[in-house]
């Protein structure tokens, strides 16, 4: 029945029964469908809508373990063939790309013109722009550059019934009508399928460097006052990311907490800031630095460190990743709490968090039976500070035992209303998102 409906919508060669019947991360599909154009995406959704089939859109699959309790939907809509740059105007510093284009591919094309996408999500080789925007992923450099909601200026969205709706536009400033793009950023594929994304760009900074400040004796008051001094200064760091001891060890083979401070600007400005930071670092700080390609290399290792839907299958069952949101400076306490709780629960925990942007991430390895208790304590610590903790990656079996999203947020009934207005038949990623949306 499902197969019949889909074969009418798209050529047979682009449909196949799932190669593997099950996936350890779930969010699978009975059929895998590979559209190459927006028209094909629309035809598939139209058919799904007409026959009340469920559809899970997927880009590179790096976030397959993020949310959702479905083993499989009727259709896994694989967007990796919808790729490429649709329109790039270097003079306007805007680009329109198809959703299945990887972050790396975009970066390479923009670099030719000395420009960049000011987003540093994880797994750039595999992650697609559609997936990054749908999951609202971001990295440490959002401190200076912002996150997807600051860069996306327009979308083409295939609504769950197959209609194509444009949001925003292609110009960098635009307040015509509602800022509908915002609804789809971070919607986890529950409101339709983005087919094209238009983004604002920035020039590639001529000079970049990375200072790694290590604090072997974990003197938190000293770290805190240093960070406050940086934030209260006129320095313009691009990241101010706290690394937990285990992560510092994994990245650099050294012990203790560390701060990864990226500087990206003209050469003189970078050198000046390096000097300032070194001069103001607390006594006893061990400082290492990398410049240009070496700094870029450090970051590219960093973006690949953590569990994702494309890490080796044998690891998937014993890993979990959490995303924590808080006020900027609470990151300090929360990263420390996550580390300490790891020791108490006998779990290996690597964590990092942005002082100055408020997003932390924690990667947990060990006995999955202990994950729920660990999550609960981390969540409590975050919520006590007005923040939240969500499970960003875990196997389906683990997710089914955990409360992935925590309690429904304020305004939840409005969110349900938005879902009902756009996807009344629950075609797109049913039950993947907070509160069962």
């Amino acid at each position, binding site marked *: 029945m499902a197969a019949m409906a889909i074969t009418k919508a798209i050529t047979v060669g682009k449909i196949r029964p799932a190669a593997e019947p099950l996936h350890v991360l779930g969010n699978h599909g009975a059929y895998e469908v590979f559209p190459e154009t927006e*028209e094909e995406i*629309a*035809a598939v959704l*139209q058919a799904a809508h007409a026959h009340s089939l469920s559809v899970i859109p997927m880009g590179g699959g790096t976030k397959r373990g993020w949310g959702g309790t479905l083993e499989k939907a009727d259709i896994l809509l694989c967007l990796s063939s919808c790729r490429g740059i649709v329109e790039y105007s270097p*003079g*306007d510093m805007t680009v329109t790309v198809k959703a299945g284009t990887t972050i790396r591919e975009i970066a390479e094309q923009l670099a030719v013109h*000395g420009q960049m996408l000011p987003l540093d999500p994880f797994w750039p080789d595999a992650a697609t722009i559609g997936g990054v925007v749908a999951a*609202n992923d971001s990295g440490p450099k959002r401190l200076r550059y912002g*996150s997807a*909601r600051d860069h996306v200026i327009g979308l083409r969205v*295939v609504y769950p019934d197959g*209609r194509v*709706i*444009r*949001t925003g*536009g292609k*110009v*960098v*400033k*635009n*307040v015509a*009508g*509602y*800022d*509908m793009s*915002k*609804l789809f*950023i*971070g*919607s986890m594929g529950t409101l339709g399928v983005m087919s094209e994304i238009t983004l604002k760009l920035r020039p*590639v900074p001529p000079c970049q460097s990375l200072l790694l400040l290590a604090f072997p004796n974990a003197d938190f008051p000293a770290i805190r006052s240093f960070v406050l001094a940086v*934030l*209260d200064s*006129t320095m*313009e760091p691009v990241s101010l990311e706290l690394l937990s001891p285990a992560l510092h060890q994994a990245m650099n083979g050294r012990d203790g907490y560390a701060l990864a401070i990226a500087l990206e*600007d*003209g*050469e*003189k400005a970078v*050198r*000046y800031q390096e000097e300032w930071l070194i001069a103001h670092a607390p006594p006893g700080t061990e400082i290492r630095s990398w410049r240009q390609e070496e700094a870029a290399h450090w970051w590219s290792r960093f973006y690949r460190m953590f569990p994702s839907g494309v890490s080796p299958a044998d690891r998937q069952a014993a890993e979990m990743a959490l*995303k924590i*949101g808080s*006020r*900027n400076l609470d990151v300090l306490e929360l990263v420390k709490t996550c580390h300490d709780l790891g020791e108490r629960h006998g779990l290996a925990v690597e964590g990092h968090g942005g002082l100055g*942007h408020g*997003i932390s991430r924690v990667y947990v390895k060990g006995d999955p039976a202990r994950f729920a208790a660990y999550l609960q304590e981390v969540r409590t610590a975050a919520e006590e500070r007005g923040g*939240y903790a969500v499970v960003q990656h875990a196997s389906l079996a683990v997710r089914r035992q955990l409360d992935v999203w925590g309690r*429904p*947020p*304020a*305004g*939840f009934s*409005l*969110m349900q*209303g*938005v879902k009902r*207005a*756009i996807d009344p038949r629950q075609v797109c990623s049913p039950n993947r*998102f907070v509160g069962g949306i």
Partner: protein
Amino acid sequence: MAAIDPLVRELSQIVGPDAVLYRREDLIAYECDGYTVRKQPPRAVVFPSCTAEVSAVVKHLHERHIPFIPRGAGTGLSGGAIPLGGEVIISLVRMKRLLHVDYENRLAVVEPGFVNLKLTNAVAAKGYYYAPDPSSQYACTIGGNVAENAGGAHCLKYGVTTNHVLGLEVVLADGEIVEIGGVPDTPGYDLLGLLTGSEGTLGIVTKITVRILKNPEGKKTVLAYFDSVEEASRAVSDIVAAGIVPAALEMMDKTAIEGVEAGNYPVGHPKGLEALLLIEVDGISAGIDDQIARIVEVCQNRNVSEVKVAASEEERARWWANRKTAFPAMGAISPDYLVQDGVIPRSRLPEVLEKISRISARSGLRIANVFHAGDGNLHPLILFDARIPGETERAVQVGSEVLKACADAGGSITGEHGVGIEKKEEMRYIFTDEEIAAQIGIRDVFNPQNLLNPDKLFPKPGRCAEMRTAPGEAR
């Protein structure tokens, strides 16, 4: 004397008798906002002093199916706060406290009636500021800024209001109070982003948490004079192409310069100029001189007639006062003016400015251009005289033609002033009926009875009723 509207008594019981206006003469000031082409008095104006009062007033009106409009300082330029018939205005100007500043976490919490510039003034002593800087910042409220997603000259580098709002408390159309955001990426749909720029049609903002920024270490400002609009426009693109992100990149054409020089803050620009650019670079001091040198070079390559760097903070402030008072300054050279707000890809500036000058010639109305060139946000000021019969209508028509030219160049009909009542029909220049219906679908979630700022933003229904079209047709 007409009997007093019983509603006035009921509202007085909620907010107190000194917080309700209802007399004809008192309502005149609320007939319009900064868009003066259309006027209509509200049924009454209420001035709640706290969120609970806003909620109580809204509940009362909602239960009785009486429409209502939130209003800040009334500086909006698209008629968003103008009554269309029978609405009660809920003015937020008495809710004007700065509630909290948290320097460590770089945020401030304000009530909606708090005036934009006051926030920067309040945190200036510690070296901080609030980035969105609409030219009306001395008067407009942050609540109004959130509703319009206001921009300003320095938004080129630092982003517009939506990039600086961290959390909101909102009273919904039925009086329910919700707090959204607060920490980044809160799970769920981004209601914060959706509400910002919704022009008071999705909720009444009663509390706002915004980001504050540290003042940049250094700042330099350049003034460049050109004998040709085309060369000035090309210089804009060249600066951006050179990899420089200026904090601000503003342009004025001949007519605009004539206006500002006749206004209250003349700079003494030379006579006979065709265009000028006002360019500001900020950031780490160590890099700024190099950027300024690059900018000067770019301007020289575009045959600049004179280019100078502000020698002092005082000079810089004079240049900015001249620019920021450009709209009111037009009063010195024309009895009336209408501000437009189209956006175009900045690479198409020369062509669109040329089109605008043709529209001006054909209509016989002068158009002054003073605008945010760096992000392609045009502000054509259409000069007219309302006393001449038919001229107001002609100005409105010219405005619409200008927006069509922007839309045709791949742009938008509004970059920061909003749709309001002014540009409702022009929404069709950039959105299909189906896309407009999709937006109305969202409004209906928040504002199902269309009581909250009714009939704004969207063109008349009928033509934009839900229609099935083949997928892909929207392109």
